């Protein structure tokens, strides 16, 4: 482990990039958000699976914030804020563009509850709007320094090798040699 890390952008751990966006909820639309969140799932799970460079995504609501009190009190935040957090590979603008293309209508239903949401078809305006409300992380951390693509490939390689090892137990050396070359490389 080096003594000093190379300088990287504040929202990056070197490979994975973080984004936290805080959007003010438009007047009277807080209740709509819960319904809109449900629309981000279909029968196979979260629609974010269609955005290949996203590691994680979260949408939550900050209805209250901590008070300056020693009694653990919170005070309502007016307006409530929609928190949109992501860890992803590549450029923020590219990920937003893919989201707008792949899950635009479902995301638009959520984002429309926030003040100032532009037309979802205008990817540039959406990116600019999100970027405007983005807050930089003070300290990001990831245990794994690898892209979604590399992790998927590694997990698949491990599964393939595990299956091969089990089958290869009863092979002769010649069969093992031929099968490994054909199936693994």
């Amino acid at each position, binding site marked *: 482990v080096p003594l000093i890390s190379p300088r990287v952008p504040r929202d990056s751990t070197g490979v994975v990039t973080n984004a936290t966006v805080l959007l003010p909820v438009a007047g009277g639309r807080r209740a709509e958000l819960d319904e809109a969140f449900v629309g981000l799932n279909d029968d196979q799970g979260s629609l974010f699976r269609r955005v290949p460079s996203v590691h994680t995504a979260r949408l939550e609501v900050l209805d209250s914030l901590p008070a300056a009190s020693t009694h*653990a009190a919170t005070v309502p935040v007016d307006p409530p804020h929609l928190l949109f957090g992501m860890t992803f590979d590549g450029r923020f603008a590219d990920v937003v563009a893919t989201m707008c293309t792949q899950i635009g209508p479902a995301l638009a239903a959520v984002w429309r509850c926030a003040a100032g949401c532009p037309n979802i078809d205008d990817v540039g305006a959406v990116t600019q709007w999100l970027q405007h409300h983005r807050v930089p992380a003070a300290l990001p951390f990831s245990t794994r320094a690898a892209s979604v693509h590399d992790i998927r490939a590694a997990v698949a390689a491990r599964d393939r090798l595990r299956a091969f090892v089990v089958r290869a137990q009863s092979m002769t050396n010649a069969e*093992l040699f031929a099968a490994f070359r054909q199936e693994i490389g």
Partner: protein
Amino acid sequence: VTQAAGRHTSLTFTTGVRPGGKWWLRVLFWAGRRIPAVAQPLVPLRVIHHARWTLLERLDGRVLDPPVLLFESDFDVDLEQYIDTFAEVLTWRMRSVWSTSYANPGLIPTDQFHAWVMQHEAAPGHFYSAFPECTVDRIVESLDLAADLDAFVASSRGIDDADAFAAAYRRFLAEVQACL
């Protein structure tokens, strides 16, 4: 309420930072970004996928009083185990971050800290993980194994004899057994 996707739990919580605390946190987080030894103990825990701390001093241009420490994380265990693990292994690091917050009940006993976190959680909406069934352990092991496998494939490419290959293959399996 925390959110879950498969084996992953997601947590978002906010605490109010005491006067002076933001200066300490700025220094601490700067050190965390530039000096690997600060955050390095989190790596071998193999519990956290991602985490980030954000210091909010303004919201929509308005000054926040108190400033808010926003913590977002996703991890493999439930919240109680997560806090217990941190309290046990990273006691002073946790204290150095959250002792700057109002109403911090102290880290130990952890049930009070857990209750404090629950009081300050964001309202859940939606959570997605690209690898909902993969623990950090499995991902790290897979990445290590994939690199070793690539190296073995490359190094064994010159072997033409089946018996020699089988011997090399068995040596390779013995080396990577822990990752299988």
